[in-house]
């Protein structure tokens, strides 16, 4: 039975997914599906990002917020690093598909998080 915190983390991921799904190409997802280790690794990082987003929202002071943001920057870097490794290893056609999937997604996260966090906290 998941606890309340677990449910909120899943809720963050689900709401974010709904907000961005239209901007993604299925081909980009398929590429990651071919790389199980990378997929599991980035899923772990995404989950951590959800946890950090909740920590950031609850942070009692600036020092705590700064620490959480610092860690979020690193987790974001880790995700991008892993995806680039996958792109480097992928066949040329897959690279083009991944490029297409990434194009135009922009910084939707930054727009979505401030809207959804107050709604679920």
């Amino acid at each position, binding site marked *: 039975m998941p606890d309340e915190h677990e449910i909120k983390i*899943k809720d963050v*991921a*689900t709401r*974010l*997914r*709904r907000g*961005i*799904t239209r*901007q*993604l190409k299925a081909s*980009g*997802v398929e590429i*990651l*599906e071919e790389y199980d280790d990378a*997929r599991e*690794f*980035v*899923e*772990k*990082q*995404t*989950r*951590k*990002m959800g*946890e950090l987003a909740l920590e950031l929202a609850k942070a009692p002071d600036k020092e705590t917020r700064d*620490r959480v943001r610092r*860690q979020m*920057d*690193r*987790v*974001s*870097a*880790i*995700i*991008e*690093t*892993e*995806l*680039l*490794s*996958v*792109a*480097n*290893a992928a066949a040329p056609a897959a*690279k*083009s598909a*991944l*490029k297409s*999937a*990434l194009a135009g*997604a*922009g*910084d*939707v*996260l930054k727009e979505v998080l401030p809207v959804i966090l107050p709604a679920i906290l």
Partner: protein
Amino acid sequence: MRTLALGIVALVVLLATSGCTLLRSKGNLDKASVDRLSQNLEFIAPAYLDYAAAAGDDVAPADVKAARDVLVKMAKDLDAGDIADYREKVSKIFPKYLVYVRGDPLLSDSEKETEEDLVASTKRLIDSIEKRVED
């Protein structure tokens, strides 16, 4: 469950896209990969050098800034012919950096795990760049 997994992957893709443009090249190297590598080293190298200086290990204080500049510049200016040498240099840094991180009483377990993941993913990126050069 698969929908959730795909959603998580989709989120991951989104998170990774802040200004990320794949397949631009620098010499034989993918520019986005080199830029990412440089930024990761900007996280790791200064912290490594601070740890080393604080511990009184090998790196003299006067050399700290120079070493930091070299580490970061190497990634920024990296070219295809440099990648093996670069990998050798950073592969010496990473294990010691992780020793420092694990022994840092000010870092939470979550922060330590993040640093370990950052190092692991950076190593994989270097490997993928090197493999691409070889191919």
